[in-house]
């Protein structure tokens, strides 16, 4: 979905650049307020993972390939504003270092994958997650749908930009872009859900958007030989009651 130089008009590039840099500036402020000591290395590792995963194109129908985007993945892990900054950094490195995505189109690419993908995807995720009353099943359903939508919405935004720039009429660009990315989005949903569930299994505290189900009392300590900290606490609690 990385738009190269020459596809978009200069007016379109300028407009999306203003929106994207504004969003990033506000994002820096939000991240500055919310980030602690532990989030910083997590941001580095998330960005590295997204960069590496974006290199791996998987084949989809009709001689086309697609790759992981990671916008909703990082939003769910570190929050939407940190995700926007991560996507921006990845896109800047890909553009300047690897000639992937044009420098004049950087604003549009950040808009499509950061503002629409990360922020828009997160809004949909939270909406769906709250709709399911923050159940564990609902978390994964919301994750799959919002990550699929983040790819389709980003591609649709790219199609609209192409149409406004006069590169390709909207009737042609929108269905083809959205259609192909509807298939690529399935890969996105699978990878996002698998990666987040893997992290939830090993380090649930690192997934900031996840609210552990509270109704059944914490049954995490069931496994034998868990941490001695948890076991100790349980004993204390039982003695207290």
């Amino acid at each position, binding site marked *: 979905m*990385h738009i190269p130089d020459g596809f978009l008009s200069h007016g379109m590039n300028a407009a999306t650049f203003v929106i994207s840099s504004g969003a990033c500036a506000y994002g820096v402020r939000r991240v500055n307020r919310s980030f602690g000591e532990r989030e910083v290395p997590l941001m580095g590792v998330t960005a590295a993972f997204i960069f590496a995963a974006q290199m791996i194109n998987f084949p989809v129908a009709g001689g086309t390939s697609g790759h992981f985007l990671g916008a909703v993945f990082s939003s769910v892990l570190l929050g939407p504003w940190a995700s926007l900054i991560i996507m921006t950094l990845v896109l800047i490195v890909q553009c300047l270092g690897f000639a992937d995505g044009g420098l004049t189109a950087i604003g549009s690419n950040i808009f499509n994958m950061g503002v629409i993908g990360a922020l828009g995807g997160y809004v949909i995720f939270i909406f769906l997650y709250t709709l399911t009353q923050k159940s564990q099943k609902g978390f994964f359903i919301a994750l799959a749908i919002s990550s699929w939508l983040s790819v389709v919405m980003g591609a649709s935004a790219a199609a609209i930009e192409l149409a406004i720039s006069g590169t390709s009429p909207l009737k042609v660009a929108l269905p083809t872009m959205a259609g192909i990315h509807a298939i690529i989005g399935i890969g996105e949903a699978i990878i996002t859900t698998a990666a987040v569930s893997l992290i939830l299994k090993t380090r649930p505290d690192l997934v900031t958007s996840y609210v552990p189900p509270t109704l059944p009392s914490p049954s995490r300590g069931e496994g034998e030989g868990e941490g001695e900290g948890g076991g100790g606490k349980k004993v204390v609690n039982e003695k207290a009651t």
Partner: protein
Amino acid sequence: MKKRLDAFIWMGLGIALLLALLFSPFASTAPDGLEKVAETKGFAEKGESWKFWKHAPLPDYALPWIKNEKLSTALSGLIGTLAIFFIALGIGKLMKRTPTKKGILFIFFSSLIFFFSVSF
């Protein structure tokens, strides 16, 4: 707690590096969604006619001086993954440390990345 987070970071970075090193050389080389649409709808040449930024050190995820395509992709992936890890780490630290002057910071890191990629 701190130690366990470190372990997670190293594990995550290790997974990312493995992905870049072992999987990226075998990625599909078919055009991606946008490229395919550009080809079939006849506006692909618009993107090939000119490039604003011509100094990318590793164009198309390859080290220009390595002939072996798979090795070239793997190494460029390794370099890129390490680079983005340190850039994001550094920027995360900067964002956390200084609450004000964020505009100046932004100019600072963009020039930093610029310098980094030119002098690669």
